[in-house]
């Protein structure tokens, strides 16, 4: 009776931004102008800085305010002129970023040059160029290493509180396409076995191979002594992409897929024994695959020159079996064209797909909303918000069973709503006020109409409220035969009081 997630390796992505980048794959050359390999251990100090980050997320139930701040630290490699590479997680919801020299004597406010939360990478620079030039004087950027092989020894670099570098040798155990930060975002990752100690309370660290930068340690499991290290290939591609503005990011196909190991299923799909193949179980609207004419029910046989096996793996020349998604989100850039081998109704065909990046901010229910203040409207005590995955996750660790079904449904089956809405606007809670008498129990209802206007997003909600009729505002909900009314006069009085009681603003609509 155990249920396991159906779309284990699904890439839930839709495309958006027009490709800004040349089609050719970048070579693995770092952004630095003239980097030199650093061999001497003490000299390594000149190639890294600490980053202190103050993180503050928004309060999911009171979207006008932020949660109490938290702190994170990282040791980050200098990868170019005044440029520092770290994890995306470190800058997610950061309110203040600061460089600190490894000896702890100098600080400098930092800013984000480019960030990719999906790949969990961020490139930082000084907030002030002039001060930055001074701060980084005498530093030596780390050069990118040639990608290490399985079994190679890599060194994890830490700097102790006293400023002494500490190198821990580890072995590259395996290479896998997994996620190390956001659920469902799979990227090429090194698994490094090393026994580490805590130094300067940070496990966000550079990983070196023969004195050059080979990866970024993103998480460390002390029990298994295993670290997830963002791969050299990914660093190279990210640094390349970060040069262009806007940041083009990693592309995606926009499909969900299922394995085809089941022999009965294979017979039905007319797959022969020497074929691999992934069953395409869903094609995202507006994604690269849909644009290229791929259909649900097609079987993906190959990407480029690589055949895909029945579990979704292909043979990588150095790393062995890798999950297919690396061929899209790792080996290729946004805008590149790739040829897909497809089996449709038992007949093979080739389709050319122009890879695009799915723009998270254009999804019906965004799966992350870092550094974005949430949109909301408070009207007479009714709190309206735009649905996002972080809001669902606020229902606790077991949010998938605890969050309201109608909201989870919108996350999992956006196609039901996409034609009539850009965002799910819902009543997230009710502040007890004279205007909301009798409404106190209402929550988690998706708003359909306000004052007769269809609601597509928070902006349309705010506009619809401006159109009061007869001194009353009517609010209709999805799935409920219930029209809730607000009295304009009472509501205005209540809103004034709410402002007096410390709600800084009654709406945020971008």
């Amino acid at each position, binding site marked *: *009776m155990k249920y396991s997630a159906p779309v284990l390796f699904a890439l839930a992505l839709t495309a958006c931004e027009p490709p800004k980048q040349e089609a050719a794959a970048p070579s693995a050359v770092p952004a630095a102008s003239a980097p030199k390999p650093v061999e001497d251990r003490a000299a390594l100090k000149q190639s890294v800085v600490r980053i202190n980050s103050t993180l503050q997320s928004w309060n999911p139930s009171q979207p006008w305010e932020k949660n109490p701040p938290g702190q994170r630290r990282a040791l980050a490699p200098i990868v170019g002129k005044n440029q520092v590479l770290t994890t995306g997680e470190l800058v997610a919801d950061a309110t203040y970023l600061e460089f600190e020299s490894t000896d702890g004597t100098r600080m400098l406010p930092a800013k984000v040059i480019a960030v990719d939360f999906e790949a969990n990478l961020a490139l930082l620079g000084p907030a002030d160029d002039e001060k930055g030039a001074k701060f980084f004087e005498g530093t030596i950027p780390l050069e990118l290493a040639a990608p290490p092989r399985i079994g190679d020894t890599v060194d994890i670099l830490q700097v102790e509180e006293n400023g002494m570098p500490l190198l821990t040798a580890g072995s590259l155990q395996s290479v896998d396409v997994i996620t190390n930060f956001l659920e469902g975002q799979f990227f090429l990752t090194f698994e490094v076995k090393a026994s580490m100690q805590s130094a300067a309370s940070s496990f966000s660290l550079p990983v070196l191979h023969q004195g050059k930068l080979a990866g970024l340690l993103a998480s460390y499991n002390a029990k298994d002594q295993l670290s997830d290290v963002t791969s050299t290939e990914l660093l190279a591609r990210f640094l390349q992409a970060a040069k262009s503005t806007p940041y083009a990011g990693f592309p995606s196909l926009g499909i969900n897929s*299922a394995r085809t190991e*089941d022999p009965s299923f294979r017979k039905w799909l007319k797959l022969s024994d020497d074929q691999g193949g992934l069953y395409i179980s869903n094609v995202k609207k507006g994604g690269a695959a849909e644009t290229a004419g791929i259909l649900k029910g097609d079987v993906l046989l190959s990407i480029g020159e690589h055949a895909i096996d029945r579990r979704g793996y292909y043979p990588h020349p150095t790393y062995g079996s890798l999950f297919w998604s690396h061929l899209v989100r790792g080996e290729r850039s946004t805008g590149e064209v790739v040829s897909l081998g497809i089996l449709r109704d038992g007949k093979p065909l080739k389709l050319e797909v122009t890879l695009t990046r799915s723009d998270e901010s254009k999804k019906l229910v965004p799966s992350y909303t870092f550094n974005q203040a949430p949109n909301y409207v408070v009207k007479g005590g009714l709190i309206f918000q735009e649905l996002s995955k972080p809001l669902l996750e606020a229902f606790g660790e077991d949010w998938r069973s605890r969050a309201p*079904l109608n909201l989870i449904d919108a996350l999992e089956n956006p196609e039901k709503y996409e034609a009539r809405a850009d965002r799910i606007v819902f009543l997230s809670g009710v502040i007890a006020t004279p205007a909301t008498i*009798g409404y106190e129990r209402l929550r988690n209802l998706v708003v359909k109409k306000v004052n007769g206007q269809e609601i597509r997003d928070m902006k349309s909600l705010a506009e619809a409220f401006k159109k009061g009729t007869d001194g009353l505002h009517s609010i209709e909900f999805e799935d409920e035969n*219930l029209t809730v*009314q*607000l009295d304009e006069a009472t509501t205005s009085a209540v809103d004034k009081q709410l402002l007096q009681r410390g709600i800084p603003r009654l709406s945020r609509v971008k």
Partner: protein
Amino acid sequence: MSAARFLLAGLFLISSASAQSAPPVEAPAREAPADIYKSVIRIEVASQVPDYSTPWNAGRFSGGIGTGFIIGKNRILTNAHVVSNGRRILLNIYGSPQKYAAKVEFIAHDCDLAILSVEDFTNFEKLPVFTFGEVPQLETQVRVIGYPIGGDRLSVTRGVVSRIDFSAYSHSRADSHLIVQIDAAINPGNSGGPVVQDGKVVGVAFQGLRQADNTGYIIPTPVVKRFLRDIEDGHYDSYAELGLGDFPLFNPAMRKALKLPDDNTGVLITNVTPTGSCDGVIKPGDILMSIDGKQVDSAGMVTIDGEDVDMHEIIERKFAGDKVALRILREGAPKDFEITLKPLSWSRMYAIQYEVKPRYIMFAGLVFQPLDTNLFAASKFDDVTLRRLYGDFVPKGIFQKRPDIVVLTRIESDPLTSQLSDFAGYAIDKINGTEVKDLKHANELLHPKEKPEFFVIELFGAERPLVIPSGEAETATKRVQQAYDIEQLSNLED
């Protein structure tokens, strides 16, 4: 607002209770206690609880102790939960070791009451018969008599009536009726025992509250009397339902929009259950003003005998086939309707079922079961679509199209199915392109006269269809049947 009814986990059922009452906080009335005690019966039950996770198995054999009391010739009243799924019921008279075999005459799971009879009533004849009183007043004293845990002999506790309410009956997990809360300890074993005041039964002890002290609940006599009247025709018909969902009309702006005066009357109808008593008559958006001439206030309360009670209390006291007069406002104009009440059997989807054998089909290692609350309680269903089908089953009338939500609950490992274990916990949409209506229909679709090349089973929310080559299905079924010791390949009847 909707018919999603998940109940108070904190309530627990007790298995025997007794009570006697006296006027408020003064010396207990002189009664002949010994006489009354004799009619309080100890009930020993051996039960067999069906196993919904392996539906072909016999289930778990267990048992328990409860209390009952004599209310007439060969009629012993107790709680339904005391004798639910009972296989052997033995009774003991106070102070006698002799055990008498009993059987269930009537059982009402929705109000947690049952009537037992013994094969030979001779030795019970001389015992006094309990009579029923009215709902006890707040603050008056009652006695609870029964056979709770903590000893073998009869126990008597005394308490005060703390609250009279309309609240959840935890046995079925789906029903709410009139309830009386007392501060006497009611413990496992008390269930089914009489709660007595002035020598008369004013309630049946039946449940407690785990997270609170001194909180016992009793079934008051209006509920008991209704049950006794319902079974007069030799059959328990259960409660009738209006099948309406409502929303309170406190809010001045809402009243203004609906053009209602500021007089605290009426509730907004938000949902009319398809096929229910009011289907086709009352519409969402109507405002319910009165039931049987009793004015409904804006919180959905009516006044009966000077007491404010939930408006459903009027329906509670009626029977299937009875009429009820509803006055509504529609587009500002009052309209009167006479509704004939009927029970809504579909709403049992949300109640735990007893005395039924789980239905299932085993086909080529795939196990199909119809969704109900028993199955839900025995499984861990995460799939959103399945959970929505369950929640919407009655309010949205899904039962009209699909009398059963058929679920793929298990995949027994077999060469044919070893790759399919991820598909457990999904509801079935179609088999070979045909929408599955119920379990029997699924069985027919899986055993057609002309075998297709493949059985293609489409599941709601799964990443791909399940495919079983029909040529291999039969041998797989046999293999699994033997390996997993499944005597019967299906049970299509309750």
